[in-house]
């Protein structure tokens, strides 16, 4: 039997952990989590959550545990792609927040409560969020405040308020802090006017202040801790607090628009027939590659990603622009089912390994390789706007995917002329011959087709080396 490998992200909660053995994924329930797990299953909460599609499904198996002290070994449903909150658009983080609160309200009806409210416990499938940590539910202790309140505010409310009220790019604060955005920082960055919203005043500004007041006492916080233990909240009070928090989150709004490529398709010089020809070409390349997983790099609002998902590929649609990802997600939410997963990604600074030992959150590369990458109208942005040599682009892409559908955009193209208008052209080898030479170092070129109605060329390539993914 292959050795079990315990997930490096799964060590905080003594109730259990996730591990893999070969290709199979398991969750071990430890003796410490046995009572709460059994209650989740017996109380009807698991079925209620499943019926709403709020919690990942699992089956109890006879598989050998990964360590001693196991109560049960579960086999959870596999998800297509694990994404992180710093890769989500505003509405994804907001939907994840609302799901967490709704699950907490439902749990209370079944005598249980969420013991954590980490944004990392939420994943997306078919345009909808779902909770993935089966062991997050514990017996509700009557009268006790919500243990995960602080974590909820740090992981969800603070970043959402900053995105809505200051700047959507502040979501990237989630990348630097593994436990969300510190409330004192959020409180300092938010405009004073947010103090006139009762929800933001109470759950953010006053929350930050009370935290500070009770953490920095002369006795090292002992008196505060004892006072905290004696706090009693009624059921009505707790439900009221959660509903208030829910309405505070739901009221926050961010409207995409005004950012880089929000209206890219309108702004380009594509005519309708050239656009349709390009779609047909991509469809034909994808049919030839027949991938099970596709990463569309520079997907914009996901027009081409949807060709891949329509062909049955599990598709992730990455883009650098929060407005494009937002629009793509709103569309995916309406479509449901086989829609692509829209995510925010700056390919020139991709998600690194983060957290303890740099291993709690996987880097982009560690989550690959994809069967097929799509890089349409992308290479000029990386090569010219970011000065990345073509050979470096080819090398990195060969680490991310086994096959590659890539569009070469020459200097004669109006989009490249626009990029070069304000700067010196130092890109001597940026031409089709240079492109093919650079990519031939890492890929074999399987197919080459001109993109009708443009100066561009579409390639289907297969990588030469096949290093195993980490």
């Amino acid at each position, binding site marked *: 039997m292959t050795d079990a490998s315990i997930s490096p992200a799964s060590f*905080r909660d003594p109730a259990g952990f996730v591990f893999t053995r070969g290709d199979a994924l398991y969750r071990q329930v430890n003796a410490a989590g046995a009572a709460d797990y059994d209650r989740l299953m017996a109380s*009807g909460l698991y079925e209620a959550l499943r019926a709403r599609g709020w919690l990942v499904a699992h089956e109890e198996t006879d598989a050998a545990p990964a360590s001693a002290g196991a109560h049960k070994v579960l086999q959870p449903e596999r998800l297509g792609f694990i994404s992180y909150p710093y890769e989500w658009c505003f509405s994804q983080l907001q939907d994840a927040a609302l799901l967490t609160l709704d699950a907490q309200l439902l749990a209370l009806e079944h005598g249980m409560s969420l013991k954590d409210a980490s944004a990392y416990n939420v994943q997306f499938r078919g345009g909808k969020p779902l909770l993935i940590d089966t062991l997050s539910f514990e017996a509700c*202790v009557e009268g006790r*405040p919500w243990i995960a309140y602080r974590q909820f505010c740090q992981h969800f409310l603070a970043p959402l308020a900053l995105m809505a009220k200051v700047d959507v790019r502040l979501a990237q604060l989630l990348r630097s802090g593994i436990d969300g955005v510190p409330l004192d920082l959020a409180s300092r960055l938010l405009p004073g006017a947010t103090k006139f919203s009762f929800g933001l005043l109470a759950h953010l500004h006053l929350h930050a202040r009370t935290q500070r007041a009770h953490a920095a006492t002369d006795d090292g916080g002992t008196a505060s801790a004892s006072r*905290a233990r004696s706090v009693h909240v009624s059921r009505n009070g707790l439900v*009221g*607090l959660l509903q*208030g928090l829910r309405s505070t989150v739901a009221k926050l709004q961010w409207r995409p628009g005004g950012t880089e490529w929000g209206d890219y398709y309108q702004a380009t010089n594509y005519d309708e027939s050239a656009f349709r020809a390009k779609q047909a070409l991509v469809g034909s390349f994808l049919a030839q590659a027949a991938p099970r997983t596709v990463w569309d790099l520079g997907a914009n609002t996901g027009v081409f990603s949807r060709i891949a998902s329509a062909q049955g590929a599990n598709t992730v649609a990455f883009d650098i622009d929060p407005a494009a990802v937002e629009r793509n997600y709103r569309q995916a939410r309406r479509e449901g089912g086989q829609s692509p997963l829209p995510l925010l990604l700056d390919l020139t600074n991709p998600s690194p390994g983060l957290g303890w030992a740099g291993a709690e959150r996987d880097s982009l590369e560690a989550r690959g390789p994809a069967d097929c990458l799509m890089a349409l109208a992308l290479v000029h942005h990386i090569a010219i706007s970011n000065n990345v040599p073509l050979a470096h682009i080819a090398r990195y892409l060969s680490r991310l995917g086994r096959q590659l559908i890539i569009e070469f955009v020459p200097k004669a193209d109006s989009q490249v002329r626009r990029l070069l208008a304000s700067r010196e052209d130092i890109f001597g080898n940026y031409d089709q011959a240079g492109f093919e030479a650079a990519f031939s170092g890492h890929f074999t070129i399987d197919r080459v087709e001109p993109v009708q109605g443009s100066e561009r060329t579409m390639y289907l390539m297969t990588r030469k080396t096949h290093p195993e993914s980490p």
Partner: protein
Amino acid sequence: MTQTTRALLATLLLLGLAGPAQAYIDPSSGSMILQGIIAGIAAILVTAKLWWHRLLVLLGIRKRTTRPPSNDAGPDGK
């Protein structure tokens, strides 16, 4: 598992195992104390809404069958 066994199990669990749970994350003293205050205000609001609803029913402005808002999630709010 039948409905009855499930209900029985749930009751047994509720009676037997609801000891003081140990949180594995730090709930932070300030956050717990603040919740006491916000939940207190929320409870007053819910109760006020309940009485307001009853008053409207009494005056015949609202029908008895209409459920008051924010009062359908907890066993305390019957």
